[in-house]
């Protein structure tokens, strides 16, 4: 049963994509650590973290694609799940600082000392333990998605209304996290990390391991997403996207289908956020900004929603473009992003991967049709002879 579920996931393109991801998980750190700094093949450490950041974004886009591309739920609040996963990791990293903070308090993070707090708030308990923090990376975004989805999908909130309330959700969380008395560091967020599992977050070795973990988690989530969309459940999911009432009248509980997908997707976004934070060294409420969530939609659309590889390619390409533009022509980046979205909507409505697949499919269709015509002629002969 489980093996069937996993084996179905491994269709040709997915195997190649997972292979590539695992290869770069080894190759990039090797080129950074083993190749001398002067060589043309050397990848500098800052670039390793930059690529690692792209992979986290790619995982976030993949998570969004699962709900948007396959289930038709346009979430404009996926940045919230990403940020919550990031905060869970950030809280673990804050607790690892210990007495090395500016104020030297062995338990309280600096911002709490600064705010004159005497003891650790209850919701910070346990975050000094790595396994607990990692569990929270999944549980917190998953729980929020569950509660949100439970109410939204049960009351059949659909389409643009749903998009608007997801946007409101991330906006509300941003305002909440900006407040100092929430206990998450206010607008400064959580930063000045020292160690992760006893290794310095600044050390090249740690950065390479974080990069490799990002690639491996992306590969794993790609495998899971592929297993989901290729199962019968995945077909029902596409059914919900294309003809929701038909699915309902066939006897499926559409609200449960949406809820499951939304929660899985939120957890994936949480993992992406957790891997993102140690690589960039900070998490702050700005990550909840509605504009961030909308950018994720752009990456997914550019790459091709409803394909699993598309959002990964879209996220990496757009963010590489962003890195280049903000370096070379900082004032033009937002225009370029806006222009890109308009261009993709007008000329590549299926996105890059979607368009390529469609072209390929049309080609094979034409060939098959030609074959069939030949075949039919041949078949006619013996029938006529009878």
């Amino acid at each position, binding site marked *: 049963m489980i093996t069937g579920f996993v084996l179905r996931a491994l269709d040709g393109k997915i195997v190649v994509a997972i292979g590539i991801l695992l290869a770069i998980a080894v190759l990039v750190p090797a080129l950074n650590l083993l190749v001398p700094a002067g060589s043309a093949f050397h990848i500098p450490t800052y670039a390793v973290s930059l690529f690692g950041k792209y992979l986290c974004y790619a995982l976030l886009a993949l998570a969004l694609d699962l709900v948007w591309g396959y289930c038709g739920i346009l979430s404009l609040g996926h940045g919230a799940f990403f940020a919550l996963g990031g905060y869970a990791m950030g809280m673990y990293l804050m607790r690892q600082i210990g007495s090395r903070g500016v104020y030297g308090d062995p338990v309280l993070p600096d911002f709490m000392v600064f705010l004159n707090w005497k003891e650790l708030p209850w919701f910070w308990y346990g975050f000094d333990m790595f396994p607990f923090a990692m569990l929270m990376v999944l549980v917190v975004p998953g729980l929020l998605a569950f509660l949100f989805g439970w109410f939204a999908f049960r009351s059949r909130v659909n389409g643009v209304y749903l998009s608007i309330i997801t946007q409101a959700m991330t906006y509300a969380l941003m305002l909440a996290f900006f407040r100092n008395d929430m206990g998450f560091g206010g607008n400064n967020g959580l930063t000045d990390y020292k160690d992760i599992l006893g290794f310095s977050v600044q050390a090249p070795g740690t950065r390479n391991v974080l990069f490799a973990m990002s690639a491996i988690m992306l590969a794993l989530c790609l495998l899971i997403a592929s297993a*989901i969309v290729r*199962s019968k*459940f995945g077909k029902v999911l596409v059914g919900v996207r*294309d003809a929701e009432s038909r699915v309902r*009248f066939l*006897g499926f509980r559409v609200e*449960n289908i949406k809820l499951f997908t939304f929660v899985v997707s939120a957890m994936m976004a949480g993992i992406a956020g957790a891997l993102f934070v140690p690589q960039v060294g900070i998490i702050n409420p700005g990550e909840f900004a509605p504009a961030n969530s909308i950018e994720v939609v752009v990456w997914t659309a550019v790459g091709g929603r409803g394909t699993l590889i598309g959002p990964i390619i879209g996220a990496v390409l757009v963010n590489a473009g962003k890195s280049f533009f903000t370096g070379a022509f900082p004032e033009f980046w937002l225009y370029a992003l806006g222009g890109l979205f308009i261009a993709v909507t007008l000329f590549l409505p299926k996105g890059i991967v979607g368009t390529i697949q469609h072209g390929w499919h049309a080609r094979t269709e034409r060939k098959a049709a030609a074959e069939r015509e030949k075949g039919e002629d041949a078949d006619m002969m013996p029938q006529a002879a009878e």
Partner: protein
Amino acid sequence: MTTIAETRSKSLLYLENVSVSFDGFKALNALSFVVEPGELRAIIGPNGAGKTTMMDIITGKTRPDTGTVLFEDAIDLTKRDEADIAQLGIGRKFQKPTVFESHTVWDNLELALNRSRGVFATLFYTLTGEDRARIEEILETIRLTHRKDELAANLSHGQKQWLEIGMLLAQEPKLLLVDEPVAGMTDAETAETAILLREIAKTRSVVVVEHDMGFIRDLGVKVTCLAEGSVLAEGSIDFVSSDPKVIENYLGR
């Protein structure tokens, strides 16, 4: 003389005094209507007579303001939602053919198959030999075997209608509600569809809403004429079409 209680206990579907209004407009007005097990029934009536509203109420899409809706004389359908009612064994075909266009014909039927519909059951589902045989059988019935691997989007309008009927068959319902199955079909397709529905009605009850009088004559079954939310006349096609009220309200104009 059969009493009401007897009619009710023998019925598959039983509607009594069902009324519903939308913003003051009475879509159904004390409608009473009974379908027996194994019956094939046609419903006619002018636009706005309440035909689609009646189907909405039976399938749980709309709740009636007053009245009784019973399935197999035991289950109160007004308390159930669409998914529940579908699982009880009531299938519905929409007016506009609604199939999953980005899936193949085969996958459309596989999804409709009457199997456990939970999240985890579908995640770990694998096609069994029994299910394969059932799908192949339905493909034969709806005459789409030769197109089983094609996307539903590429089917003709008539074939989409048949595929949707096939999906309902895969659901193994006790009662099938079919809304305008021959709208937009060629004459040949219409005749085929009448044969198909009669075949289906051998093993289950079918209620067909249709405007095409020729098609209803082809079916040769008991006809109910609705107007302004209640039953105007009921009986054979000749009896109903000679009823002066029916002529005035529906046929005459």
